[in-house]
């Protein structure tokens, strides 16, 4: 089985979010970058599927040279080779059309990625890739098993889940509990250094949006503390101050 895993290179979940260049650019100063947590689940499941039934895993990122350590980490976790599409992505359509172009005739059975990135939270790339390629796209996927040429999945819905089956090839936007995050071991880290990382230039250059500017939410007011022996006071505040109950 041939699997493509698309990963994002995003600020660690504990990062302070700030902007520079007149609020037009993310301030990466002092920020640690990671594989997007949802993408990391997709990758972990790909590694498990490969362990079960063989095949290959290609990991892909649309980004500048600074994302290569993140791709190397994915190689250390278990991908066989990597593709970096050398571009600063502008929006979901940009990313999706580049991914679709690379995947078009490459014969992947599964194209996996996270349900959304944790920087822009768009949640749109998997669906766009599926539509451009004319194959099913399923998201958010909680479990994924392969049975012959069929993928069996659970898709999360509000308040529950849907069990479904679809023939490959397909695109899936993944989330937990599809697999547990994998930490690269020493052997993986060593072998990742020499695995192929191919850089390709973007060819589609499509986008549907342009950024005007970023902004931060207004600061939160101070917390009102209530004594544990006086819960009636809390009820009073919620009723008459916040007016929510």
């Amino acid at each position, binding site marked *: 089985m041939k699997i493509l895993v698309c990963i994002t290179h995003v600020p660690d979940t504990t990062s302070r979010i700030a902007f520079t260049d007149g609020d037009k650019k993310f301030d990466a100063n002092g920020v640690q970058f990671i594989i997007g947590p949802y993408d990391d689940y997709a990758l972990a499941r790909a590694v498990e599927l490969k362990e079960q039934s063989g095949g290959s895993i290609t990991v892909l990122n649309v980004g500048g040279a600074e994302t290569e350590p993140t791709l190397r980490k994915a190689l250390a976790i278990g991908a066989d080779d990597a593709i970096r599409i050398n571009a600063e992505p502008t929006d979901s359509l940009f990313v999706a059309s580049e991914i679709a172009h690379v995947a078009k005739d490459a014969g992947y059975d599964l194209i996996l990625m996270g349900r959304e990135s944790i920087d*822009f939270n768009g949640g749109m790339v*998997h669906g766009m890739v599926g539509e451009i390629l004319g194959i*099913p796209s399923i998201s958010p996927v909680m479990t994924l098993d392969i049975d012959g040429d069929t993928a069996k999945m659970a898709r999360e*819905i509000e308040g529950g889940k849907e069990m479904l089956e679809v*023939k490959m090839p397909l695109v899936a936007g993944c989330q937990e509990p599809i697999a547990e995050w994998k930490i690269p071991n020493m052997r993986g880290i060593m072998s990742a250094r020499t695995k192929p990382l191919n850089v390709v230039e973007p060819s589609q250059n499509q986008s549907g949006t342009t*950024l*005007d500017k970023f902004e931060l939410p207004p600061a939160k007011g101070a*917390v009102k503390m209530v004594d544990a022996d006086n819960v009636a006071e809390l009820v009073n505040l919620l009723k008459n101050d916040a007016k929510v109950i």
Partner: protein
Amino acid sequence: MSSILVFVESAEGQIKKTSLEAVAYAKGMGGDVTTIAFGTEVSDSELQGLGNYGASKVLHVKDDRYNKGVIQAYASVIADAMNKEGADVLVLANSSLGNPVSARVAVKVDASLVSNVTELPDTSAGFKVKRSIYTGKAFANVELTKDKKILAIKKNAAEVKEVGGTATVEAFAGSAADSDFSTNITKTEKATGEILLPEAELVVSGGRGLKGPENWGMIEELAKVLGAATGCSKPVSDMDWRPHHEHVGQTGVKVSPQLYIAVGISGAIQHLAGVNSSKNIVVINKDPEAPFFKAADYGIVGDAFEVIPKLTEAIKAAK
């Protein structure tokens, strides 16, 4: 402004609150609002009732194949409806169905697509919207550059208003191909009669501080008295104390209720990422240094096992 199409979802025969917000949002943009609804579980009178929220017309795809979330088929029919109605804007609520569907529609009709939209567009120069990014920690103002536009709106992006009136309901066949139904949905498991967490106005959420699943009775009791949905932190769902769809945070459900009550949750930054668009946050934690207090509006330092039953009684008494 020309015509706007709104994709409305229903659950258990009722239009979802988040879809009513999408209708209100579209109405707020001005112009004529047409909606499209799917499946056989929603009644004509429920659909006519969309008029009360600002819709003038409902296209009803009355076909039981759509009672399940067949993503590709939904996308084909919605794209078809946009074309037939001459709609250049599609509005829908961010949801587990809406998002994957809208991504495919955007490609089909060559539209600019933005999700997590938090405010009405600014059309004074171009067409700009504000959207939530970094899991609620920031916003981006973006311009949609294509002629057609799709907006997947975040909860609370518009206030539902009753304007009076009924909508006319028209049958809409829509052209989905057989291949659009290639995904075979074999089973749906869904909590019924429960208040759904992503849409809830009040949420009571429990963390590892509750020590075990056997202690959730008091959380459920408090939620019941309030009419709230229940949520939890990630370790709680990881340990199967609670079902996965209750997991709130960076990697789980993002909630935007009027009130979020966090009990025995430390307030790790990844948990806060899922609750930072709540209007009011109450934190109950025995550790005065718990980071959650910094993100709270109201706090009680105390043992949940003592505070929660008392709080439940006090709310009952106040009702």
